[in-house]
């Protein structure tokens, strides 16, 4: 039996598999079907201070090897979350990471403060990268100073590990990783979805009510792997990688690129029981390759050959 545990800042996760925010509800939806404590962590759906209704349907559309979503961060707000969902997550033994949203800097701070006041939150993932809402989030995540400011402000009010979730919709994601690290982030997670669009050629209208949506799924995986690779070269803090992961092979690929842990989102929609299968397959990978400690694979590709120079990088 290989050691599958995943050190992540102050945490040591049982294994590197996390349910990705926005793809697993508040976790409790899956509590009757799965043992939530068997996951490395559950990252719950993004929370603002108050409830949000989200966008009008249709909210998703399938594309080749992927899907677009424009949910619009429908959610119950942090106050209802700590009262109505967090107790069950605790009772089920879930390592709970909360995805924190904000329209303003103050809102990120206040949501984080509320969460820090409650037992049962293991870490905060700062959502500065949702492509689907006009105000908040992405306006911070697409600006180096915005990224720095959100992390630094939240750092002031919590001792929980902070993990900003980075958008891939920028020219040089590694510079955002550096900004997050410099502001005191304990880890980073990437990538959020790629801003994208699909058009119905019969009606000549966008397929999503919101017109634009975020692309996820296997279609984006090689780009996400590249971005994790670039960030691993740029920062020392742990990286949580995601983007189209659906198998143990994909998990290993992200870890080799530099991810300390991974998140799985879209693949969970098609197969909510994939967790135990991936863990078993990770075990067999380790056995096959004589790996005693899975975490030893993290970033291993970087030593294997001369590091790639980015083809283009802003000065």
């Amino acid at each position, binding site marked *: 039996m290989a050691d599958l545990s995943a050190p992540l800042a102050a945490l040591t996760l049982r294994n590197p598999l996390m349910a990705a925010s926005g793809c697993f509800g508040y976790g409790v*939806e899956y509590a009757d079907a799965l043992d939530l404590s068997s996951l490395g962590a559950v990252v719950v759906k993004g929370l603002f201070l108050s409830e949000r209704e989200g966008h*009008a349907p249709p909210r998703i559309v399938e594309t080749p090897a992927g899907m677009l979503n424009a949910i619009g961060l429908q959610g119950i707000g942090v106050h209802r979350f700590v009262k109505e969902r967090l107790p069950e997550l605790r009772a089920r033994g879930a390592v709970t990471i909360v995805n924190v949203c904000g329209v303003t800097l103050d809102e990120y701070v206040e949501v984080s403060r509320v969460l820090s006041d409650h037992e049962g939150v293991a870490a905060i993932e700062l959502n500065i990268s949702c492509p689907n809402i006009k105000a908040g989030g992405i306006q911070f995540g697409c600006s180096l100073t915005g990224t720095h400011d959100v992390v630094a402000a939240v750092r002031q009010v919590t001792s929980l590990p902070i993990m900003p979730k980075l958008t891939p919709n920028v020219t040089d994601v590694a510079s955002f990783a550096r900004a997050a690290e410099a502001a005191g982030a304990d880890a980073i997670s990437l990538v959020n979805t790629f801003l994208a669009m699909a058009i119905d050629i019969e009606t000549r209208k966008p397929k999503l009510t919101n017109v634009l949506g975020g692309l996820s799924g296997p279609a984006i995986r090689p780009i996400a792997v590249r971005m994790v690779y670039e960030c691993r070269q740029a920062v020392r803090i742990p990286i949580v990688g995601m983007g189209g992961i659906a198998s143990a092979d994909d998990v290993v690929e992200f870890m080799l690129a530099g991810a300390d842990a991974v998140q799985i989102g879209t693949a969970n*929609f098609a197969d909510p029981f994939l967790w135990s299968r991936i863990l078993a397959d990770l075990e067999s990978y380790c056995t096959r390759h004589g790996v005693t400690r899975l975490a030893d694979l993290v970033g291993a590709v970087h030593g294997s050959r001369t590091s790639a120079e980015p083809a283009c990088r802003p000065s």
Partner: protein
Amino acid sequence: MLPRMVVDERAEVLENRALSAEYNVVTLAAPDIAAAARPGQFVMLRTAPGLEPLLRRPFSIFEIVRGADGTARAISILNKRIGIGTGRLYAVRAGERLDCLGPLGQPWPLSAGARTVWMVAGGVGLAPFATLTEALVARGLALRLFYGARRGEDLYYADWFADRGVDLVVTTEDGSRGVTGRVTVALDRALASTTRDDAMDVYCCGPTPMMRAVAARLADAGRDTWVSLEQVMGCGMGGCYSCVVPLRTAAGGTHFVRSCIAGPVFAASTLHWEGLAADHG
């Protein structure tokens, strides 16, 4: 809500019976789902291996297939070929295996007080009424099925319901069978001969405009209608928030709820039909 004993069965296709160039019935060996399912629930089917389509598709559980000893052994799906997933399900062959996740969703509520039950089905909306019929026949209720289609040849399984004592009222838009016109024509006639005091439940499934029209007529007659909605659905488990439907709020606004776990069955009076209709153009 019910505790959810959701399982994923790698179900063998026992039979694929074409009803027409559009419709077929697929029987799947999913004994655990068949044993646990309640009338009106659904499954998420992976209609093909690989990445196309990437997501599963929701399908009402049509029949529960039982062995000689009465043990539930399989479920069947009434399918209409529309897109990639349904096209794939139309073409599956016996012996193939499909991942089948379920049972999912809230079942049809069965009230204790009703003596009469009306079921109103349009097209592939017939699917959730076979299990409901079996449950209600077992309670000794008088059942009537209003079943509408464009053409007579699009009416399937009429005998199945008639054989179980269901009073069948069929309507076709081209007049080739039964009452000419939409299902609401027959419904209006029947409503004229009922009184508000009759203890009756009404269940409806079909295209959204049809369900809205049926619910409006029943509301005029002082009755609510249980409707089973079909939404674009990502996961069936409450994880993705894509299948939402708008409910009316006490404050006069609307609130989106997930059709997969709060539904697919809703009381028509709770729905914001204008918002729902907008989804379907």
